């Protein structure tokens, strides 16, 4: 798998999206899926920037590869143990007043991936996302 290691700061978002976008294109992911990939990656990476390292700075590592006709992205951090998939989905049927601000990120992660899993290994949070090719 190809790897990108960046500091977990918002300024690195563009590099993360450029890296995963190029790899996805090379793997043959169609343009519509590439947009969904960008949305999901933004959520996952921004989460790490915001919450993983409350005591200071840290890093994130992004791995890209292919497996069984899927483009696979893993995103690692060494922050506090946190399973983003444990968050509830927002109620997307509510109107402006009732609708909570937030919670959409996790909805995107679930909705736009074909498979997603969380694991904790060697003090790392690992989010593994599969995007089907064709």
């Amino acid at each position, binding site marked *: 798998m190809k790897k990108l290691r960046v500091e977990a700061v918002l300024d690195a978002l563009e590099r993360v999206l450029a890296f995963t976008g190029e790899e996805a294109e090379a793997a043959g992911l169609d343009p519509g899926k590439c947009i969904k990939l*960008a949305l999901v990656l933004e959520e996952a990476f921004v989460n790490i920037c915001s919450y993983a390292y409350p005591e200071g700075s840290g890093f994130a590592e992004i791995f890209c590869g292919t497996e069984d006709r899927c483009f696979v992205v893993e995103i690692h951090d060494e922050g506090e143990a946190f399973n983003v998939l444990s968050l509830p989905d927002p109620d997307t049927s509510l109107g402006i007043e009732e609708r909570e601000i937030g919670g959409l990120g996790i909805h995107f992660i679930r909705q736009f991936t074909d498979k997603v899993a969380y694991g904790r290994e060697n003090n790392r949070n690992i989010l593994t996302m599969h995007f089907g090719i064709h």
Partner: protein
Amino acid sequence: MEITSRKENNTMIVSVQGRIDAVTAPAYESGMKELLEKETLFILDFEKLEYISSAGLRVILATAKSLKAKSGKMVMANVTGTVREVFDISGFGAIFTMYDSIEAALAGME
């Protein structure tokens, strides 16, 4: 990301160009807050918006909520392509009134 605005028939037409993501959402929010202090009727023109992430939807919802609190109104025009897809999958497509053009949105405001 760039925001331009003009006023027509008492309505602010706010055109957004580029991307509203985690990096640019704060700039969008502060730009809108400034307009919200003086105005109550808004059309968001997304014809030149290339990309929106949940961070962008969050600030749009926040501004819509504060507008609603003072009996204002916000509708959208020219929400197409990827941006439209993001709106639909998040349920935002149903929250907001969408028009195919600024003219139609202006007519709908009356």
